[in-house]
């Protein structure tokens, strides 16, 4: 018996380079995986580049199903202003699978929900375009899009944690 092997992937660039098994979700003023936030800070009153990430099951092991995907952030966004972390993840009226486009620092259609700050009561990221979707073999979730906006009073730096959760059925 073996558990599923699951990694987080992130897509960047015009031609979509999908980097597998990322090690952090740092956000800033560069479209790059594992962003260096010191070299690429977010200026007040701007947005970070949107992140396109997905949950990727590379091997389902002896499990029969992966589903009920939940994503949320824990920790404050920072002080000195009003900051918002927006996403396409939502528990109701899910907009279907988010299509990849070259990451931008402007608002993206459908990426307008406030990122939950605690575990959602039900799935908020889909598989195959639906919140009740499931993976029964190797495969990936829909893209999670998320972006931080800051206002003019923002001060430097904050650290918080992105959480990615799934149910695995033996």
């Amino acid at each position, binding site marked *: 018996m073996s558990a599923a092997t*699951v990694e987080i992937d992130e897509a960047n660039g015009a031609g*979509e380079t999908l980097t597998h098994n990322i090690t952090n979700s740092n956000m800033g003023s560069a479209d790059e995986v594992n962003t260096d936030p010191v070299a690429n800070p977010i200026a007040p009153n701007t947005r970070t580049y949107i992140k396109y990430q997905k949950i990727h099951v590379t091997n389902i092991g002896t499990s029969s199903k992966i589903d009920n995907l939940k994503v949320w952030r824990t920790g404050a966004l920072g002080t000195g202003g009003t900051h918002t972390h927006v996403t396409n993840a939502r528990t109701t009226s899910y907009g279907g699978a988010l299509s990849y486009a070259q990451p931008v620092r402007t608002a993206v259609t459908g990426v307008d929900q406030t990122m939950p700050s605690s575990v959602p009561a039900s799935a908020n990221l889909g598989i195959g375009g639906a919140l009740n979707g499931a993976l029964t073999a190797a495969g990936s979730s829909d893209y999670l899009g998320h972006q931080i906006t800051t206002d003019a009073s923002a001060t430097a730096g904050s650290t918080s944690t992105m959480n990615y959760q799934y149910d695995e059925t033996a």
Partner: protein
Amino acid sequence: MTQIHKCGLCKKEFDSEEKYVAHTCPETGVTPADPENLGPEFAAVSEAALKRGEERKVAAEGGKKKK
């Protein structure tokens, strides 16, 4: 447009997901399909989760038998 698949650990690039998953990463010595590729912590967490699941299943079966 062709999607490039890049290993986040060894930085090698592949023209398909299948090739990425099949490669033995020199950083870990295993393929991305192996739990060990995500580090000893993930493998340990997976193993513990499986154990908890089995215990829950046994407990549930025991409960059913009592009825």
